[in-house]
């Protein structure tokens, strides 16, 4: 994931007026974030994924693939691009160059898309090597015991 972090930090340095960048899993789960957002990343991710998926569905109805969403707010621009199993959102000030943002987004999703495929394999391998700890019986019982307290 360090390589993805480097790609994102690179965009943060290169694009004038950039406010932040958020890389999401297709479900809206934050993978990498740069910049400061007032909203919690989990919430922002859920909203961004819902927006993207809705426009993607409109595209399905129109017989079109969705490549990118550009949104212009009062003082901000937002550019959202998809890759297999992920979404990249760049947020920048209204003075930022849209062309540059689009170019950076396009380059980034190509590179990140490849890396995310690699990390999928890496996760599988980590689980097989016990490096990722799945919940055990004791963990599960502890979670359920905390929930059961509400029954009394």
């Amino acid at each position, binding site marked *: 994931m360090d390589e993805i972090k480097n790609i994102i930090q690179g965009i943060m340095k290169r694009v004038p007026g950039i406010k932040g960048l958020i890389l999401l899993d297709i479900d809206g*789960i934050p993978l990498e974030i740069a910049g400061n957002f007032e909203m919690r990343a989990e919430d922002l991710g859920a*909203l961004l994924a819902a927006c993207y*998926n809705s426009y993607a569905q409109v595209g399905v109805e129109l017989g079109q693939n969705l490549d990118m969403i550009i949104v212009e707010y009062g003082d901000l621009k937002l550019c959202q691009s998809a890759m297999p199993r992920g979404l990249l959102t760049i947020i920048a000030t209204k003075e930022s160059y849209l062309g540059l943002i689009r170019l950076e987004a396009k380059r980034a999703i190509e590179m990140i898309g490849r890396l995310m495929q690699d990390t999928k394999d890496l996760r599988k391998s980590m689980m*097989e090597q016990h490096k990722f700890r799945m919940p055990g019986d004791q963990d599960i019982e502890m979670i359920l015991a*905390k929930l059961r307290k509400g029954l009394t």
Partner: protein
Amino acid sequence: MKIINNKLYLKIIFFGTALAGKTTSLKWLFHHAIPDEFKTVDQVRSLETSFGQTLFFDFIPIQVSSDITVRLYTTTGQDYYHRTRRLFFEDVDGIFLVIDSQKKELAHNREFVAELGQYLASVEALKEAEIVVLYNKQDRNDVYPSEELERLLNLDRYPSFPVCATSGDNLLPAFIMMMDHILKKIREKSPHAISQ
């Protein structure tokens, strides 16, 4: 189930007809049953229409342990938003099927049970999902008892609870059952799991 940045993410959705009590159930659980130590937000996140019904979804993330986050969603029940609903069935671990027990809602319930059947048949990951049925509004007049609804809707293969979302009756036992089933399923599927 997803594993991202060494954390496990589970997804549970509430599915059912418009005004069946999906959001009310989610809000009751959040405000009355989910322990404060699990909460990572102070309120249910909602995208609503101007008249207060769910537009896309309601959403809460809860962190049940340092490395497990459960994401709870409701889907919109309005027919004219049905195209947005399928999106939420990807990577789902658990489904609360919320049935409005009022007799006048039987036809609507049948439509939603049929829609769920279509998703179960077409979304591969859903075949592994846990389903718990909530027969809501059992406190009202002119409702079918849960046993009769189970027969009328052909839902006897799923565990179920007669519930009242406004008072919260039986919601926590249903939630505990859902979590128990999902977590144990993950445990069984993971031969390398190790306890602390």
